[in-house]
């Protein structure tokens, strides 16, 4: 079976043609300009993963939100579960880039880290 997807690893966005067998197992891929493309194709067929970026509520900061992202791609099917988990988190300013606010989220081996520095509101 043939399937066409776009690789999302780098800006090239190569159009990949993936060949799978009747059970859906990966056979081959063409169209990639680099070896990462092959790895992406294989992953897409067996266990599609994504990374997401969102925000958490920041208390006492110059901005009401601190942006966050996952450190590793997680199974695509779990994205909304992860969003629900992240939505419940509130952190206190200052927000510091790189701080882990959820470690190993839902046991999926990815952390959630802060991606923006936000200072505390100065008390006058």
């Amino acid at each position, binding site marked *: 079976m043939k399937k066409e997807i776009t690789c999302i690893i780098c800006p090239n966005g190569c*159009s990949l043609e993936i060949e799978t067998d009747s059970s859906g197992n990966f056979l081959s891929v063409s169209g990639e300009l680099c070896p990462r493309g092959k790895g992406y194709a294989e992953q897409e067929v067996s266990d599609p993963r994504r990374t997401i970026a969102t*925000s958490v509520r920041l208390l006492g900061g110059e901005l*009401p939100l601190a942006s966050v992202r996952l450190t590793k791609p997680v199974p695509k099917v779990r994205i909304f579960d992860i969003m629900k988990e992240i939505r419940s988190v509130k952190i206190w300013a200052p927000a510091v880039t790189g701080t882990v606010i959820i470690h190993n989220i839902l046991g999926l081996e990815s952390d959630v880290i802060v991606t923006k520095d936000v200072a505390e509101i100065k008390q006058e």
Partner: protein
Amino acid sequence: MEKKDAVIIGGGPAGLAAAVALYKDGIQNIIILEREKNLGGILRQCIHDGFGLVRFRTTMSGPEYAKQFIDEIQEFGIPYKTGTAVLNVSDDHIVTAASPAGIEKIEAKAVIFAMGCRERTRGALQIPGERPSGIFTAGVAQAYMNLYNRQIGKEIVILGSGDIGMIMARRLTLEGAHVQAVYEIQSVPSGLPRNIQQCLDDYNIPLFLSHTVTDIRGKGRLESLTVQKVDEYMKPIPGTEKEHVCDTLILSVGLIPENELTLDAGIALDVRTRGAIVDENCQTDHRGFFAAGNVLHVHDLADYVSLEAESLAASAAEYIRKGILAECVIPVTYCSSIHDVVPQRVSGTKDVVLSMRVNKPLLNCTISIMQNGKQIAMKQMKKILPAEMIRIPVQRTAMSSSGTVEVDII
């Protein structure tokens, strides 16, 4: 009056990279003027990843990408002022700015425009219909959601398949809104293919090409809208009307370089790019005025904005030291398949990177750069999309100091 070697207008990706490069090059009597309270420009609200793939060989979010440069600004103590809006730039190099501290005037040897761009609006598009609330351009929706903590709507229709629109489709979906569809008036998407994959396909959001919004209804808040298929002249086809009951319309229909200050200084703009006409030094037609980043031409990767700004910085440094740069008299022309090329003039005596966009998608072709009947550079492309800026380096050794440079597609 304060005198600076360089005043950089805008503390976004272009301004930051230019400032750091200038400073490291030894030009240290400089200042960045940024109107927001923080440095970073548009990157502050681009919380999705995909930045830094080219430059840092790793993917990071917009704020993290900006932080790479902001850390260097702090580390080196490069002067900058936030909360400071430039009101005017005169053609005799005086920059006037306002901030809570007052009005200040700075005389700059080199003025570097890095103001970025604005979004095309509904009014500019002249979409007919009523004027309810609930209509946002994608960048505004992004700012509300990522910086101001506002939920903007529940039932969303997006007009325009630009990257920002698609990224907002994903963002809104992740936050529990229902994105009903994305409509694009052209017959090809205007954003990058990988965004179609990871923002639309991943969430089963349909994309309809050759469609546009032809009517908007709602007395208070948006209630419904009509979309129609369009023909090859982008005119709505009668009988193809489809109605969407929704409460939000997001417009992702184009970016326009924000050149009001540039125009005030009397500098000429290119009608295609809507940015300044520049030479290979990123110098405009006014000596000592430079431009890079989205204010020069709309980019699709922040990484290339940084490279362009750094190249500008090298030239600006030379200008500051010598008081003049070698004139670039060779025009760069291009065939009808190409939409625009930057820079518009070269000297033929320096390595240069020509950045360009095509008018329509092309497959299996070669971009050939010619001068005096000889090919001086080329790039073979399996696929070219208008959404992707193409950069082709041309070596100094291949060029001659006279003869128009022609960009052709074969």
